[in-house]
């Protein structure tokens, strides 16, 4: 895999992971082009497309597009399931993940990805093992941070708006519903 991008329906980049060396300028150009191309595609179209000399594999989960660029020899379907497994991992870690979780805890999204994919290849495909690794890391800090977290009021709320730090109404909060087909069953909370 050459890179992975997560972006919203509005075209906002939420996560970018590059497995080949590229300049910042090139990365921006690629991102711009791809986001445009993928957003222009209609639902029900196939999840693969040729782009430059790469194959793009993408899938939409609620408001987020997950988009991977793979090489000619790589397997499209297994890449589609890499995306799904990553979404499952995020979902399990955050508990019904939504776009806001990824915005506010972007560093976690990167850490989870690193445990799952490294150098563009699947490193550990067992969900249990990946989550165990992340939890272990979290535990290392749990005791020290516990007090601080209570103090800072960062206890996770079930209400995504509160999770986002306020009862704001302008944010498009949508759970990434992974166990149901996307699009048709968005769980809109507001």
């Amino acid at each position, binding site marked *: 895999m050459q890179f992975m991008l997560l972006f919203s329906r509005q075209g906002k*980049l939420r996560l970018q992971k590059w497995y080949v060396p590229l300049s910042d300028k090139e990365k921006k150009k690629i991102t711009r082009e791809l986001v445009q191309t993928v957003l222009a595609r209609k639902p029900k*179209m196939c999840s693969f497309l040729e782009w430059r000399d790469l194959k793009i594999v993408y899938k939409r989960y609620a408001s987020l597009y997950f988009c991977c660029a793979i090489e000619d020899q790589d397997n499209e379907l297994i890449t589609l*399931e890499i995306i799904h497994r990553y979404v499952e991992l995020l979902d399990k870690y955050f508990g019904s993940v939504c776009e806001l979780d990824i915005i506010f805890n972007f560093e976690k999204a990167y850490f989870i990805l690193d445990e799952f994919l490294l150098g563009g*290849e699947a490193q*550990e495909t067992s*969900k249990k093992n990946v989550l165990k690794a992340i939890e272990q890391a979290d535990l290392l*800090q749990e005791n020290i941070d516990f007090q601080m977290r209570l103090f800072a009021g960062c206890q996770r709320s079930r209400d995504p708006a509160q999770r986002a730090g306020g009862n704001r109404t302008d944010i498009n909060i949508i759970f990434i519903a992974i166990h149901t087909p996307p699009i048709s069953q968005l769980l809109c909370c507001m």
Partner: protein
Amino acid sequence: MPAVSKGDGMRGLAVFISDIRNCKSKEAEIKRINKELANIRSKFKGDKALDGYSKKKYVCKLLFIFLLGHDIDFGHMEAVNLLSSNKYTEKQIGYLFISVLVNSNSDLIRLINNGIKNDLASRNPTFMNLALHCIANVGSREMAEAFASEIPRVLVAGDTMDSVKQSAALCLLRLNRTSPDLVPMGEWTARVVHLLNDQHLGVVTAATSLITTLAQKNPDDFKTSVSLAVARLSRIVTSASIDLQDYTYYFVAAPWLSVKLLRLLQCYPPPEDAALRSRLTECLETILNKAQEPPKSKKVQHSNAKNAVLFEAIALIIHHDSEPTLLVRACNQLGQFLQHRETNLRYLALESMCTLASSEFSHEAVKTHMETVINALKTERDVSVRQRAVDLLYAMCDRSNAKQIVAEMLSYLETADYSIREEIVLKVAILAEKYAVDYTWYVDTILNLIRIAGDYVSEEVWYRVIQIVINRDDVQGYAAKTVFEALQAPACHENLVKVGGYILGEFGNLIAGDSRSSPLVQFNLLHSKFHLCSVPTRALLLSAYIKFINLFPEVKATIQDVLRSDSQLRNADVELQQRAVEYLRLSCIASTDILATVLEEMPPFPERESSILAKLKKKKGPGKLPDMDDSRRSVNGSTEHSENTDTTNKSSTHSFTDVLNLNPAPSSGANLLIDVFSESSAPAAATDVSEENFPRFVCKNNGVIYENQLLQIGLKSEYRQNLGRMYVFYGNKTSTQFLSFSSSVSSSDALKSQLNVHSKAVDPMIEGGAQMQQILNIECVSDFSDAPVLNIQFRYGGALQNIAVKLPVMLNKFFQPTEMMSQDFFQRWKQLGAPQQEVQKIFKAKHPMDTEVAKAKILGFGVALLDGVDPNPANFVGAGVVHTKTTQVGCLLRLEPNVQAQMYRLTLRTSRDSVSQRLCELLSEQF
């Protein structure tokens, strides 16, 4: 899982992110960010030492700002500091920042490497993993140099934790991709291959990727992996899905690992050992059988994972191309998918079948699906799927179905998406030519192409139809009649006017007997289009007119009147004016005999490969196009070829069997067909390549590369990493115009794969005393020693001039200088100690031995000049990295002058012998 945010809450970060999200405009966002940057800057600069938490928070904010798309130019030091924190989350944020914002600042790299080194040595698996992830994410050369020898040890050590092994394997894979020269596998090979037997499936998954990458480069070293991979695969495909516990994904046993193992096997031919081979065949059969079983789950994840393995198995079957039963079964399976309700599966089936079509065993089986594929072309709603259908039709086309496939493609072309029209046009043109038995069909097809998609018919296509008509006298009359009819349409495409003008100019006499297409009618028809056309087409039409004068004396007066009109003789365009004047004079003064000789029918074109196919290849990129001339095909294609040759030879002196030969065409002037006066249609005979000034450009980028009485060629060039741009200035030293000016760059076959040179088109005319600029874009793909040649052709006062100049694009142009300290230098010097890596040359000084001049030359050569490295101050020491697209090659050099003997000794060490050799040749000529 507890519903508590894991790890650490950073309140300040959350507030900041909320603020950014609240910004109503881009300006507001930038304002908020600048405020935050100022705040962080002052915190970092402040006297009060920051605690780890604050440092982490601010670094994390910077990271967020960077990921939003803003530039960050500070905070690297603070991030590096976090690496040495003993708090995990602080360390983690530090690593994340470094992974995302790599900086080539060498001081920092040293500190980062130090942090990594400590964590690698910590024996704490969590810390070791962080360090390995960072190396894998950054993957820079510096890191490869520091850790490439350490990581294999971690990978195969008996006491390494499984999770660390996994990270180490993929870390090594990444380093091998970026700096293969620095990852010595030798002694570790056997133990790495043995990881395929590991108990832990996660380790096997990671190791399989690594072994595949290594096996692609050195298949022989990893041959033993084949039997282990087959054994492992066999255990997976026969296991009950429950056996593999968490590695079972939606009832599919270890799909990722299966795909990777099948991929690894594609690095090798079918196993020779009979037992192993039958075991593998069994595996593949089992996978094919499973596709027929009812699904164990309705979830799309189940079918995707299952089919991912199936497609990879089919890819392996096609790669082996040795088991007819498996190939046919694969084809039938894909045939089922062609009508599947999942768009994704239809897409992949079309794609996969494309490669299947090129196997002699399954070509016929693929053809049975033609109707389905044609239907897909008509009904698929997704353009990317239709594109695959076009590709497949192209791949399955042969003599038996060519007419139908070409007809379907033509009818699809009428409604095809703009983005793929040009490609379809090329494909139709190639198929029509390749499978034409009856050339009238070919002519009809191409004229249809122009009618339906004239804008997408490139020069190559219409040049080609003219070449074929000229070379085949059995089709000339038909072609003349057909173009004449096509031109009757009130609005016809300019490309049709070009083809029509050319063909009627040559063969109009063949239909002139019919009063409906008498010479005058033909002329009036052509001339009615004249005013709607662009200058090059008008020029071509003028040539057709003068040819008419020769063919039909009865219209001479009419045509002379046209040529004599002010709109021709005083045309603002010089080319048109000149043609009008010359043709008019020619028609007035030349006798009929002379006229007939000058304007004789064009001789047959020399055998020439189809530039269309080359163009299609270029468009699709290498490897994307099923190779039509694949040797495998010749088994069932041989009869067609011979019969093709027979028919061709009967009617023409030239065979077209090499029409699809992929060797690029000899470069010919772009005006080849427009210019009927050209003495011969063959490209001008090879001229001597001027290389006299070539060596002068080794150490400099600008200057005059060629000069004669007529023309001066100057160069300005700039290079960055593996890319370069060269500005070529053509100065006309005379007071007369150069006409039909063309310049192109050609490379030897070997050089073509090593260096890409793309030249922009130039104006065909340079005024007297004027200068014209041409831009060449250069990309170095891998190391090379040849140089491209610039071919220039132009007409000066009627005489055709040919000039060829060796272009000074040398390997050292892609140098990036590297500064390093004495200690580093000698360490690396020792590392590059293998005998073939060093090249030494002792030679006599050709120029006065001046220290400053020598320094300037070494700097100009592209390397950094290192002071204080060599104990003898009279010696010069340099270092640099040659950047190519595929790899980077570090280079160290030392030049020792001996003033008394007037000699130099030059020593070069690089990791690649061909590079050492070439650089030494180049540099030693300079002193």
